[in-house]
């Protein structure tokens, strides 16, 4: 078992490094890895340093954060198909950004992050509130309530943009992607990742125990609600940060933890590291594809990952037909 786990880690690390390097190399013009290591001083070096490096870093960070946010959500809701995007976090953040646009707030990364965070937090609180019953969080209610509520938020966001004639902005907001990422965003993402990691190390046992049913977890001495609230804050922080930097990128949060679950099981403590690595690797490959498939234009990463994610979910359900019980 230990050997197997180590092998998985090794593969994931190699994938992550490969993804990172390929992301650095790809762009409107392909630089060979050697060029990346020893660029000609001047424009080439500056391109790598000021355009590609922050972008590659951001894609790794966003991938890791979305994936771990998804896993946290799946753990606290005990539902394998929970995804921050399904739970209204993204649509809440989007609505806030639309409102910000309408109000004409200048979109510094901090302002974006603040707006996204507030929107995501409010939306998530509503969905969480809807899913709570006397006996704790009901997974199915969480998913369905979330889907419905985020549909509602999308409606409101569109109504707002329709009435204020800002449909063009609404449209560009829909598309997730990393063009124009700066070091400001990278620092923000890194800070979030640091917070999330520290919190996860602190909470790892409590989170692992949440995979048991409520009564059992309680009897083991876990502070279920406290843990859930903390985890929720982490989710909103991570998802909000990602929306602020990269817009909507569907299904990293759902697909990556599920991939890992198929390989390594559902236990939180044992798999969270793998989820982080895999998320980072996936998105750095995905972004490399988005920016180099049809150079010099950018493919919409948000749509790409939704399609990949949808297909993936299909395959996952297909495989797991018998074993799906919540």
């Amino acid at each position, binding site marked *: 078992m230990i050997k197997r786990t180590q092998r998985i880690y090794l593969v994931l690390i190699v994938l992550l490094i490969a993804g990172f390097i390929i992301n650095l190399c790809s762009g409107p013009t392909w630089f060979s890895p050697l060029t990346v290591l020893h660029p000609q001083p001047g424009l080439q070096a500056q391109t790598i340093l000021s355009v590609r490096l922050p972008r590659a870093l951001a894609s790794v960070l966003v991938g890791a954060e979305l994936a771990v946010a998804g896993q946290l959500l799946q753990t606290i809701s005990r539902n394998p198909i929970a995804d921050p995007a399904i739970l209204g976090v993204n649509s809440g953040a989007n609505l806030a950004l639309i409102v910000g646009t309408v109000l004409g707030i200048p979109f510094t990364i901090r302002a974006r992050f603040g707006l996204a965070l507030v929107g995501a937090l409010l939306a998530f609180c509503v969905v969480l509130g809807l899913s709570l019953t006397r006996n704790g969080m009901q997974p199915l209610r969480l998913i369905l309530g979330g889907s419905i509520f985020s*549909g509602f938020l999308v409606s409101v966001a569109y*109504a707002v943009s329709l009435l204020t004639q800002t449909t063009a902005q609404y449209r560009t907001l829909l598309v997730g992607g990393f063009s124009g990422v700066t070091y400001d965003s990278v620092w923000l993402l890194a800070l979030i990742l640091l917070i999330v990691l520290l919190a996860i190390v602190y909470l790892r046992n409590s989170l692992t125990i949440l995979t048991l049913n409520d009564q059992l977890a309680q009897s083991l001495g876990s502070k279920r609600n406290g843990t859930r609230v903390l985890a929720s804050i982490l989710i909103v922080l991570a998802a909000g940060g990602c929306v602020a930097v990269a817009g909507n990128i569907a299904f990293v949060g759902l697909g990556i933890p599920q991939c890992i679950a198929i390989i390594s099981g559902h236990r939180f403590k044992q798999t969270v590291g793998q989820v982080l690595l895999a998320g980072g690797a996936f998105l750095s490959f995905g972004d490399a594809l988005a920016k180099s498939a049809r150079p010099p234009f950018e493919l919409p990463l948000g749509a790409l990952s939704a399609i990949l*994610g949808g297909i993936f979910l299909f395959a996952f359900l297909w495989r797991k037909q018998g074993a799906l019980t919540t």
Partner: protein
Amino acid sequence: MKRSFQIWCTLFSLLFVGLVIFQLTHGSIHLSWTDIRQVFSGHGSAQADLVLLQFRLPQIALSVICGVCLGLSGAILQLVTENPLADTSIMGINAGASLGAVVFLAISHLNIPLSQTVGLPIFAVLGSLVGACIVFIQRRLQQPLQLLLLGIASGTLLNGIILLIELQLDQFDFDKLIVWISGDFWNQDWSYIAVLGGALLILLPLTLRGLWASDILTLGQQAASGLGLAVAGKRQVLLLLAVLLAGLAVAGGGAISFVGLMAPHIARRLVGNHGRHYLPLTALIGVNLILFAAVVAENIFAPSQLPVGLVVAVITMPYFVYLLLHQADQESI
């Protein structure tokens, strides 16, 4: 329950009549009773004729068609998935129908020999079938939860594709697409309405037949099978009907979500879980919801209008929240 069924039916019928009267008389142009009478007796002014016969009545007719289709389709989905929160928008059916419509609009530039009046409903229904293809690939519909998850998966996938098309095919209007996705009565020609109405008239008796004794499904698959119901077949038929009804509704009014969710919910709360009672009421409430949303959509920001689907989403949300909170005490959803 029978009593309350009769009472609520009467009340909602009255509400319907009230809404129709309001809709007929109000708008940018005010029509009096005499105007309306004159139009119906064939002596109306040209303007009153136009307003009544070309704008207001078609809208009401479409509201009725979409309301009935969406309400019943939602009720069927909730029955088959054994989940009171299922809805056409969750099951990927709306996304499929929208995709069908989007594809049709995209290829309509290629001069295909299909008029929009016929082509669009066909594509929307085909799309909804694609969206619900899971239902047909997935032969063993043993676990309702699986069905639900597959629905969500296909919805996400299709929405991703719609997004991609939205962003890639610049030559046609983003705004036009989003009207589809948020729901609006975009074509109010009588010929179009006749096609939809005809289709509904064909589907309704089939639906009635399909839903007869469907209460037995609420007992669970094993018990239903024990009572002599061919469960798998019944579920397939019902799902197919739900998909066709939803496709029809999307062709008429775009992807209006929430009606399919809310109408059966309200109906069941009012008259209980007996299909004989709540299903007819569901259709009636569906019609009322859409009609009310249409009235609001037209008048609240007049002369600007909102898509009907958006208004439905916004006005039913408080009730939805109330519903979830109210049910918080009970074990089930």
